[in-house]
């Protein structure tokens, strides 16, 4: 597990209007989610995913988890699993499964919750716009080198 200490200075933006609901969700529109800066918090390897080379090869099951935070108050928390794909000859970190979070996306027009599944899909799209693979590569190298 590796922690990040760098916290970016907070800038005013749509996330300044965020509130935490009694059920723990931080509700926001998709637009706010897309604009929300995320900061790496910690990453780690699954303790049982490391396998020693066997028969001259390497098991392709190195996996782990990562946690990211917003600098807003209340804090938005997003975590997901990743897997290191060793099969293509190029090391690639790939997200595995849907992100987990305290976010609930609401419809911009009627303010209704879109639901956990749709929220997870929108967060996954948001993650495509952040270079999380590079950050994890760096964090894992420091932690497990």
């Amino acid at each position, binding site marked *: 597990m590796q*922690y990040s200490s760098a916290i970016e200075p907070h800038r005013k933006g749509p996330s300044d209007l965020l509130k*935490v609901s009694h059920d723990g969700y931080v509700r926001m529109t998709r637009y706010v989610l897309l604009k929300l800066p995320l900061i790496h918090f910690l990453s780690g390897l699954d303790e049982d995913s490391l396998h020693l080379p066997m028969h001259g090869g390497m098991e392709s099951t190195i996996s782990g988890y990562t946690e990211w935070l917003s600098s807003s108050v*209340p804090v938005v*928390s997003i*975590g997901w699993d990743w897997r290191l794909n060793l099969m293509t000859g190029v090391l690639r970190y790939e997200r595995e499964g849907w992100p*987990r*979070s*305290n976010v609930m996306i609401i419809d911009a027009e009627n303010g209704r919750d879109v639901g956990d599944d749709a929220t997870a899909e929108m967060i996954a799209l948001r993650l495509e716009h952040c270079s999380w693979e590079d950050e994890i590569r760096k964090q894992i190298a420091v932690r497990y080198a």
Partner: protein
Amino acid sequence: MQITYGEKTTLPFGLYDDLSSYRHEVFVGLLGWDLDTPEGIEQDQFDRQDTVYVVARTDEGNINGCARLLPTTKPYLLGEVFPELLNGLTPPSSPEVWELSRFAAVDVSAAPTSTRGQLSSPIAVSLLKNALQTAASYGAKHIITVSPIGIERLLRHAGFRAHRAGPPTVIGGHPLFACWIDIELSDLSL
């Protein structure tokens, strides 16, 4: 596997003592939690007369899992010890919200496996379903719990409806978070 639940005074004779020993073996001995507890047993201020326990036992009678349920209308672990995990929210206090704590599904008499494997075992899933059903019988509709972040993955994989109540925080070297679990009785077929 046999599941028994009840309060301290309604559990079968001797089971509460066995449970205290089991908790010590798991949480202090196996997981290394730094708990201020008498030698050989694990109890704290939340083990009261009204605390509800769910205990799993093997066919031979050995405890291989446990859970503790507390009403949030009285002092409970998250509200008293870890309120900072709630992202600024006041700890819930409702007869419809119960806290799950001291959850374990480990057969300490069996060969060791990885922690992840132990927690994702069919025993763990069955125990958790029983714990949610027990909480529901006391009027709960939602569970709040303090857990290592890995638990959230296991909840998802097992099909429970859960979401985090706030960001994880590193406490005692372990990233912990508060988690909501919705009780959907239709999803709890055993």
